[in-house]
């Protein structure tokens, strides 16, 4: 890749806060000075796609919570980009326990300390955890 071939396809994923650095060659085929880049089209596409997937999962979880199929923990887990093993380690529980807590009828009877732990993992209040809007 030559210095003038370093892609500059910004679509504000970096929000102007930083530019990526690339090693690229000059006309003589030598690496002298790295060049900064504001982004590249394929990377932007892949990134946008990954986030779309996340948003779709979050929205689906929200609908299922509102329909009473799963507990709000499932929604916040998706929203915080967590999966079962990760959430389980944040609340110091086994995965099967967290899985149980995803059932609305089990969630209803969770102790306040347990709710507090989930709220802390998601960085929200217990109030917000219990009453999903």
């Amino acid at each position, binding site marked *: 890749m030559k210095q003038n071939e370093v892609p500059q396809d910004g679509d504000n994923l970096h929000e102007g806060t930083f530019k*990526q650095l690339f090693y690229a060659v000059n006309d003589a*085929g030598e690496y002298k000075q790295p060049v900064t880049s504001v982004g590249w089209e394929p990377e932007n*596409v892949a990134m946008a796609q990954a986030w779309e*997937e996340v948003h779709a999962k979050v929205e689906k979880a929200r609908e299922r919570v509102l329909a009473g199929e799963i507990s709000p923990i499932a929604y916040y887990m998706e929203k915080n980009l967590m999966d079962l*093993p990760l959430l389980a380690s944040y609340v110091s529980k086994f995965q099967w326990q967290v899985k149980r807590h995803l059932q609305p009828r089990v969630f209803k009877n969770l102790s306040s300390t347990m709710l507090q732990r989930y709220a802390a993992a998601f960085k929200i209040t217990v109030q917000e955890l219990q009453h999903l809007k």
Partner: protein
Amino acid sequence: MSQVQFNHVQTAHCESGVISNLFRHYGLTISEPMAFGIGAGIFFGHLPFVKVNGVPGTTYRIWPGAIFQRVCSRLGVKMQSQKFSSPEKAMQELDRVIGEGIPVGVLSSVYYLPYFPPAYRFHFNAHNLVIYGKNGDNYQVSDPIMDVVTEIDPKSLAEARFAKGFPEPKGKMYYPVQVPSGVSLQKPIRQGIEQACHYMLKIPVPMFGVKGIRFLAKRVKHYPEKLGDRKATLYLGNIIRMQEEIGTGGAGFRFMYAAFLQEAADLLQQPELAKLSRELTGIGDLWRNFAFNAGRVCKSRSADNVSYGELSEMLLQCAAAEEVFFKKLSKVKV
């Protein structure tokens, strides 16, 4: 509180960047590509069973921490490295060490770093950065992939240092305690090159090295019929992200290694290495071409088998080129 002058230089990758920045602070000038080369950072691996957010992982570099450890042992730098059981102890020790005016490398999770753009904040736990001082309560950060230094509040830093998941940083921090002043780079360069060739050519597991690229090529070909349109584009998107995203740059690593070879060629008067550097630059361009076309397939979202077949062909081409390249490299007498 004493103000430490820390000379921050933006780099392309966090681990080799922190090495370069930290060592320079102690008068040992090693460029980022040189650190990457001596640490034999170049690699390839495709791990279908290690899933990140439900998508198989692909890596273009050696596992986190390996570059650091190799560079230190090859250059004879002694590091003090610690992990902690609680955030309080970890922050206390950090305060003590930077209080002495020593810049400290810290392992952190990208998810909790507020100065990153939200679009990049996934749960990735092996990001390296340097804390070099305090401004009031806030810590002064030299994050190697940022163009300027920045600050972070203590709460976010503690969260980032104690993120859960794999690998768990456990507040890991490190700083050099003994840095040699003058080192000959010849032997470290030779060891780095030997190790890189070994890892790319000789690991007897199909997922790693040149074999790994072929392994991925075979799988990409069957993505559409095995996974369906939607998942196929997601899997493909992840390969691109691993290749091009900040701090992971797979094709970027090819260019960085080429820069290393050029530097080594000048340093050791080895024109053969300069020739190989140009060859690797060409391979990096092959990878970029692959990413470019994969991006187009992702965008169109139609999983027609022809395009996946073509992508698979491109990967095979990359594999063939890298095999030839590393075989030549392994024969160079450094």
